């Protein structure tokens, strides 16, 4: 069964360092997303990506964040200068488009900023 894969599963970094989280969405999907979940809190939308550009972003997704689909398979989230409050589980998700809300989530990348 096709699945969304994310790497790394856990990353520890120092405040101010750059971090890149990687995702391989399901191959025939067209819509790609990043969500995050701070420990004990709700799953929050960060950004959606369609047709090689950002289609929507939240207030959380400020200039420190960027996304890229550098080739036909990878989808990355970069945080330029990490802050303590960026510590969270980051989920990549993809959708086929037929049912826009039926998303397939990866297992997440846990980011710990010290």
């Amino acid at each position, binding site marked *: 069964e096709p699945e*969304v894969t994310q790497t790394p599963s856990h990353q520890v970094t120092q405040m101010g360092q750059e971090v890149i989280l990687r995702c391989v969405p399901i191959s025939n999907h067209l*819509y790609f*997303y990043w*969500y995050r979940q701070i420990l004990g*809190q*709700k*799953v*929050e*939308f960060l950004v*959606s990506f*369609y047709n090689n550009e950002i*289609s*929507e972003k*939240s207030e959380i997704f400020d200039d420190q964040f960027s996304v890229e689909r550098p080739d036909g398979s990878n989808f990355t989230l970069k945080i330029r200068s990490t802050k303590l409050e960026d510590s969270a589980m980051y*989920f990549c*998700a993809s*959708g086929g488009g037929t*049912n*826009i*809300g*039926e*998303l*397939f*989530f*990866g*297992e*997440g990348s846990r980011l710990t900023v010290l």
Partner: protein
Amino acid sequence: EDQVTQSPEALRLQEGESSSLNCSYTVSGLRGLFWYRQDPGKGPEFLFTLYSAGEEKEKERLKATLTKKESFLHITAPKPEDSATYLCAVQGAYGNKLVFGAGTILRVKS
């Protein structure tokens, strides 16, 4: 602003003891209401989509229903493997983002 409130926060059931989880929502132009299951340390897993009031969907021991203000996830004769956090999310009129509730943590004991 679209909002989702789920209750209860946590629910403990004995195996076979049926119950319901609630999801109340406010949204500008509901395009869809979604239920997801999340196991500890994992990403959410899609369960159901509901589009309009009166709609019902079923899968094994789960049934989801929708009114104009809330949705219920009914669990009939639950088993320990149904233990998980159940998330409700809505998609409003603008954009494709999902707005999630905080979830209900369900524990089913044998």
